[in-house]
């Protein structure tokens, strides 16, 4: 099942590396991504499209992401709004 993670993180060096490492460790491929800083430049909002096969693995991943020191907030969405998401990237 495809998922979109929308993650607001501190805008600091290495934060993306730490985040993507969580996915790499679980052999999860990032199918698309977009990253933008917030207007005040203090945070970044990263959107990743990924696929997690098993429900309990998804639940665990959610909690692991949420506990990262640099993660300010995280939202998960199914891919019902996939078209809009990709459209936003084009814009």
């Amino acid at each position, binding site marked *: 099942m495809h998922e979109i993670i929308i993650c607001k993180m501190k805008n600091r060096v290495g934060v993306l590396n730490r985040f993507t490492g969580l996915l790499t460790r679980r052999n999860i491929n990032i199918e698309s991504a977009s990253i933008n800083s917030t207007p005040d430049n203090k945070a970044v909002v990263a959107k990743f499209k990924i696929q997690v096969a098993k429900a309990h693995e998804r639940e665990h991943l959610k909690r692991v992401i949420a*506990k990262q020191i640099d993660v300010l907030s995280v939202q998960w969405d199914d891919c019902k709004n996939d078209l809009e998401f990709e459209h936003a990237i084009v814009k």
Partner: protein
Amino acid sequence: MLARREVKEQDGVHTVSTGSDVLLGILKQQGVELIFGYPGGAVLPLYDAVYRQAFNNILVRHEQGAVHAAEGYAKATGKTGVVFVTSGPGATNAVTGIADAMLDSIPLIVFTGQVGCDSIGKDAFQEVDILSMTAPITKQNYQIHELDNFPKIIEEAFKIAASGRPGPVVIDLPKDIASSLPDDFGDEKLVISEEHSVQRTRNVDESMMLKISEALLKAKKPLILAGGGVLAANAVSELRKFVHRFDLPVISTLVSLGVMPDKDFLFLGMGGMHGSYQANMAFYECDFLLNIGSRFDDRLATNAAKFAPHAHVAHIDIDASELGKVISTDFPVVADAKDALSWFLSNTEQMPKGEHVQWLQQLNDWRKKHPKHYEEQEGKIKPQAVIEEVGKLTNGDATIVTDVGQHQMWVAQYYPFKRSHQIITSGGLGTMGFGLPAAIGAKLAAPEKEVVLFVGDGGIQMTVEELDVIREYKLNIKIIILNNKTLGMVRQWQDLFYEKRRSQTVFNGQPDFIKLAQAYSIKGLKLSPQHWRETLADVFAEKESVLVEAEIPALEQVYPMIAPGQPNQAMMGVD
């Protein structure tokens, strides 16, 4: 002219001249009394400050030893251990210890030297990208690029390392920052958003806790699993009060041994792969399991799908990501173990004791029918007997440090632990070479405590250079090598699961460990099968370190054993 700034300290005024001096000043403010480290090119400014300030640096002989020593120190005290290593190989040598601390939730701050900011990314001498390397094995890591935020980052690191679920933090310190001459760091106070910068802790979910209390006390076969989180939260006293109030049987993990006294009738011993018969059968039979601060690792829940098959499971952990990770949880609670146990104590006073006398009787029957046991062999020294004897000689009160392997499991089974922070061992990563430096850290943390290191002939050779630290600092550590001339645990698996093909696990020659000890000016003794008990008694009467070699049967097995993937009740080696 050097720019200088005065930083007031509690006991006077100290003049700061470099970034390194500022760092040491902050460490003092954080209550750091000693660090474990090894100098090198990139940390020359740092060690210059150590020299000028006469900061207490324990000079290890290898960077891996520095981190394990800091782990031992942290485990023995509950304080955050601090490490200094240089860049490049110094940093990579520290990686094993950092990973070990991550898996066992040990608070550490590891300062890695780094080449100057202008040289980073240019393959400079002794440059590695330690931030990328340590990202998955740290709670957080930083590279300092600006003097302005230097103090804030260090203070934040200390908070992160020790708060919530503890863990290691790496701070990569470029040489030019360490040697810079700050004019002013600004006087702004440290401001850390509790919500965002440290792991969130919450109030105890009272409705869920009430449900757990009711279910636990209604259960006919209740069981408590008390993990390392109980020790980390300093909640041993609360745990003991709670379980005695309701006569609840308790199982420990490897790292939480001592959470209950070995002799306590409610204590079933360690559970899992080499756990006691009664503990593993209790997992199988229980109808309500309350896990406080254990992560259900695969050495404990050997087959997650078949673990505690008849039980409703409640899990209290400070780390939300542990809930449901391995075992489905009916009653999940994110809470500090002390908060949760305090809640139980305050809110269950009026609750009646459950009716589980038959369950306690069943557990006791199992204990009597299948006690831990080993066969004595004429003319041989059995490792279990040595550990039991040390237990008697130390009245079960020594700080026990182990390396990894068979001896580690025998110690877990046969040493009569009775207090918290008593066992110092590498539980999650299973790091051979951990023991010797960790024992050094434990001894430095509490010099008044008897510290005993049990180690195998394989593990001692991985960090043997640290014997020189024992010599230099005149530490009194009793080192007991249980020598079976093999990599015993791997050999045991080869014998049991690979048709005795002992591939690369039998040493075809060894150093003379007694002479090796003597080379480091440490007394060395080899136990004789006839008089080993008397010799051990003499050893423990000594006020200095002694290395003791006990030659044990090469094919001795650790039993009980649950084969990998088998459920907890499927124990091998049980009569």
